């Protein structure tokens, strides 16, 4: 449990990382380094996006599944590692 904290702290301190959130399969945030309102917003929106992405992948090929999702935008980037039960979401600033 402490290892989880330590690892999150380490990643948080890396260059460019704005925040990390872990969300469960229903879209409820479990652990986060952002403030509450942002967390809730990200959790809800990204959960829907991942569900849509996953269903897209699956519809094209039922044997396939989503493994990683990365969004690049002008001001930031979001990386999502989805699993069967949880998502790990990392929000970053592409400062370089």
């Amino acid at each position, binding site marked *: *449990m402490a*290892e*989880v904290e*330590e*690892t999150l702290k*380490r*990643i948080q301190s*890396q260059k*460019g*990382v704005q925040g990390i959130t*872990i969300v*469960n399969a*229903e*879209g*409820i945030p*479990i*652990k986060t380094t952002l403030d509450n309102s942002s967390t*809730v*917003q990200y*959790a*809800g929106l990204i959960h*829907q996006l991942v*569900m849509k992405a996953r*269903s897209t992948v699956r*519809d094209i090929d039922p044997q396939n599944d989503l493994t*990683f999702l*990365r969004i*690049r935008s002008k001001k930031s980037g979001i*990386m999502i*590692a989805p*699993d069967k*039960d*949880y998502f*790990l979401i*990392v929000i*970053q600033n*592409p400062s*370089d």
Partner: protein
Amino acid sequence: MRVCVQILRQFCFNSATKRIVEIPDLQWEKSQLNRNVACRFFFIWFPDLTELKLPVSDPNPSLCVCVLLTLQWDTDPSVLQLQSDSELGRKMQRLGATKITQVDFLPREVVLYCKETQTPITGTEEEDDEEIIDLEPALESDQQEEVDNKETREGYPGRELTEEEKQQILKSEEFLSFFDCSIRVMERALAEQSDIFFDYSGRDLEDKDGELQGGSSLSLSRLFYDEHWSKHRVITCLDWSPQYPELLVASYNNNEDAPHEPDGVALVWNMKFKKNTPEYVFHCQSPVVAVGFARFHPNLVVGGTYSGQIVLWDNRSHRRTPVQRTPLSAAAHTHPVYCVNVVGTQNANNLITVSTDGRMCSWTQPISTPWDFMELVYNKSKPVAVTGMAFPTGDVNNYVVGSEEGTVYTASRHGSKAGICEMFEGHQGPVTGLSCHNAVGPVDFSHLFVTSSFDWTVKLWSTKHNKPLYSFEDNADYIYDVMWSPVHPALFAAVDGMGRLDLWNLNSDTEVPTASVTVEGASALNRVRWASGGKEVAVGDSEGRLWIYDAGELAVPHSEDWARFARTLMEIKANRGDAEEEGLVELTP
């Protein structure tokens, strides 16, 4: 002419109130009907009806009767026969249901966007939309429907989990395994930050980093250092993975500044991705002084510790502590184990460990008691304090050990001469590193080995002669480790206490190293290991830093290198023979 009249309904017009009232039952007497009536089609107006007993109290009643006229004429053929609505006239008009045709209109397909805002929308502009939303249009996939339902049910932001539930989840096994895997992937992705949007026309190209150079010299490729686990620890051993050439494991001594941290740490580093954190972190209770990947078990890492325990870590489990360890018993090792080696083949392999009290043990999986152990004793009296051990290529029985006294011995595991065979004297200080010739080529040099020692020299030996063939004396400090290149027959690397990494190419020069580099900070370098491809060399220093150098062109062997090396050897032997008068003692192998 006779007129048949059928009275359908009867109405009375009240001229005072100017209302028309229907009269339900009105019985007509025959006599009344005989009057002259002004007949209008369908409506017959009777002007004077005072004689009729009308149920209405009206001073001036007038009656209007709605009738259906059926005209019957005489059956005179000269008269027109008018048949108008005769059928309908006969029966009472009754309204009944006609044949119903069912027409099904499907609800209009509406494109719905699953967009929700934070403030709930109360009342939309068009009522149509609301109606349609209520209809819940059918969608293709069930998942989508479920998600929609969930959204509409949960709303936004959704139900919250209590702190306890969150803690519960965070401790659960499946969460930890998910976290382990996805954090690793995420770190790699974070490290691979390349700017795909870079516009070359927008700005001038700055001078590129010195990545393109490094053709013929030794250049620094990576530095692996972990703030938490590497700080203040000495790297005691290194090993490259035989299965994944980008992985290497480094073992670390204890951290004196942090007594509460585990004493022994082994970190598995990954060269392939740019992330600077270890792939796996393992630790144990006693400082790890030797480490290696288990050659035939890709998931296992073997460690030899200062306490004499052998520990086994498994990267499949999430635990950072060993999955197996040997008991601390007199049957096993009780002294630091400086060498661990897996020898054999896929089907028949053993883990060989040697400790500084001269005991050599050979283990099989699962390690609990040694399968075989042997005391390495020279001349049946003096135990050998082993600091290094190496097996020549392809040999599983005979091996070479270096000792603290400066002598090197050959020994064999089985056979009639099990135990120490020959003694090689030459070094004046403890032997720190030992390496048997590895490169396989047209000429066999497997009898050669090099040793490094505290006496500032690296010596080249052959198992056939008990005195060194050559001594390399370019260094001015303790030499901590030496290793032959796995691909180049005449190349070896040595590291010393001044932070120098030397590459010696015996085909070019035997007096000075061909390439030399000092690490930043000039900390003492404790270990050197070539990667299995022979292109990179890893050095570990006393500050816990792991440097990966790229040897470039130097390390690439050419086909004539073997022949050249054979000639070099002959020259060396010839020079040696001239220099020393005493005859070489030829040893039978």
